[in-house]
């Protein structure tokens, strides 16, 4: 089998689920005749028809609300946000309708809302956001952020099959930059499980989405100095796999959390808070976070690069922790 890109893996996941489950359908802007702004749905209109690949008016709230209604009827809608930034326009439907629905009256909402998040592509503040932590606050939601092509496919399949509303934050920087050979067969992933990407014993580096690779780059650099870092790809943010991260930090005694969302209350803040409590007896250094400063995303390359939590910043922070 040849290697495919992260975005192609996402497309494949949707295609395979549409083939084998007629309840699955797609709503989004420009996903039909155009095949999606990022080509995530290329060819799907021809294969599955306009009733299952729906080109929507510009109404994120209506797209998501309609999908909620269809999901309660037993369908399995997948809603595309052309850029995840626009999920803000459908906030109420996600946070107040989909999320609490099962808790309130016992009715499941098997909905997936997916789209490209993240920056590093010089697209400024409304095409580069990482808003996942705004939703991690919402009870009843599940939040996934795959970092590899294998997981992009496996976890999207799992998300579509999950009876709960799942927000699927893809990272657009990874769309065509990573290519992997996918496993044979259905290879449905499992939500709620982090993965140790690289074993180590001196320091734990935690990332998700694009920062999974930032952590891997830091680990490679440290390895040249004889320091083996353990890299964890969170993969699912909610429900959070605290056990895997805790087991690692108990072993290494040091934790650096790298995330592209804004520092304050970005998902890494929750990771750090829980470790500060549960890992306290094993810590040899404070838990540190390298994240995006609390700023909107600027346009100019020099400005954006100043803010992105890149390999240089993460490596410097890791070295500081190793000095404790």
């Amino acid at each position, binding site marked *: 089998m040849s290697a495919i890109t992260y975005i192609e893996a996402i497309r494949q996941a949707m295609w395979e689920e549409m083939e084998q489950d007629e309840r699955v359908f797609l709503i989004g802007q420009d996903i039909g005749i155009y095949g999606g702004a990022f080509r995530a749905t290329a060819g799907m209109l021809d294969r599955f028809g306009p*009733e299952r690949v729906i080109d929507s008016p510009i109404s994120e709230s209506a*797209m998501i*609300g*309609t999908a909620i209604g*269809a999901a309660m009827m037993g369908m399995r809608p997948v809603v595309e946000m052309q850029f995840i930034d626009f999920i803000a326009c459908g906030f109420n439907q996600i946070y107040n*309708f989909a999320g609490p629905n099962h808790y309130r009256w016992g009715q499941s909402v*098997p909905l997936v809302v997916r789209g490209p998040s993240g920056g590093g592509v010089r697209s400024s503040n409304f095409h580069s956001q990482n808003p996942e932590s705004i939703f991690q606050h919402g009870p009843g939601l599940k939040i996934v952020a795959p970092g590899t092509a294998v997981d992009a496919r496996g976890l999207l399949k799992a998300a579509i*099959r999950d009876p709960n509303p799942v927000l699927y934050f893809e990272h657009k920087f990874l769309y065509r930059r990573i290519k992997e050979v996918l496993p044979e067969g259905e290879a449905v992933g499992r939500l709620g499980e982090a993965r140790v990407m690289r074993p180590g014993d001196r320091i734990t580096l935690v990332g998700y989405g694009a920062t999974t690779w930032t952590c891997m780059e830091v680990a490679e650099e440290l390895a040249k100095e004889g320091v083996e870092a353990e890299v964890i790809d969170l993969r699912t943010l909610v429900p959070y796999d605290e056990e895997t991260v805790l087991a690692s930090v108990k072993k290494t005694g040091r934790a650096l959390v790298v995330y592209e969302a804004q520092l304050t209350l970005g998902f890494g803040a929750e990771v750090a808070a829980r470790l500060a409590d549960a890992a306290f007896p094993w810590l040899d250094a404070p838990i540190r976070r390298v994240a995006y400063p609390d700023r909107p995303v600027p346009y100019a390359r020099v400005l954006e690069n100043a803010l992105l939590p890149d390999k240089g910043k993460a490596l410097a922070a890791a070295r500081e922790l190793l000095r404790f």
Partner: protein
Amino acid sequence: MAKPSRNWGPLHPAAAEETAERLAKTDLPRERQLEIYRFLRLNRMTEDRLSNLYRQGKVVGGLYSSRGQEAISVGSACALEPQDIVGPLIRNLGTMFVRGVQPREVMMQYMARADGPTGGKDVNTHFGDMKRGLVAPISMLGALIPVMAGVALAGRMQKKDLVALTYIGDGGTSTGDFHEGLNFAAVLNVPFVLIAEHNGYAYSTPIAKQMRVKNIVTRAAAYGIPGEMVDGNDVLAVYEATKRAIDRARSGAGPTLIEAKTFRMRGHAEHDDAGYVPPELFEEWKKKDPIDRFERHLLANGLATEEDLKKIVTEIDEELNREVDAALASPMPPAERAFEGVYCEVGAE
């Protein structure tokens, strides 16, 4: 401000001949019209009972009355087929009764009992049951419109020949979701009906501060769908208009916007004395009370006698006595339940 009546309201036998109420023409048989009468009374009497319980501190939180608007809930719901799905709002208790919700469930729900429809998890009409074709609302107005459009879409995909119906108040038509949802339903041509209850006030905001148009129904043209305005206090007119819209939707002709003109005869909720409403409006609309009008119609057209109607009312009264007592005697939920039920377990959907 008139105190809510502790009785179910006077019957008007003497007035029957002189002011024979001409309601909309209908082919509904006598039995069905008596059922409609029962649902109207059940709606009003249940809410009166809830109001009393609120005063006694046995019902807490928001208590929203649909007094004066019962014909809209009951008339519209009676036009639904068994496979249709409806999304009631807080002032559509009558709709829920027509769909088979029992007074016992309502009492248990309003008193947050463990064995009520949401087991203490949510308030007033915020409960549903897809098996009975009922979708629960959220408090954010308008949100249910795209959701019910989605129900209609799914019904079409599943070839279920169903129509989705929901409601919105005059205030709710100002929300973005009203626009997005109705436009979406229209563009996708789904089998969907929206009833806008023009009751004059959104909490304390009168219609003149809510919109510049006089009639909500004019907005139908903006979405390219038919609109119909109806006397919301004529239960037969509401029934007939809803039936037309539902039939149209079922035939594949898409959504309809119905505007039902009525008046909110109480405050926004039980705590609100509606002092901002000119008293003459209450006097004017009391004369158009939908239940009084329907009674006069039944009596004048020989569809019922006073005894028939008194019997129905007495039976409801006794039923409510039993169900209130049963609910009061039933347990509150255990505290541990607060932590449960956030997610649907895989396989349990």
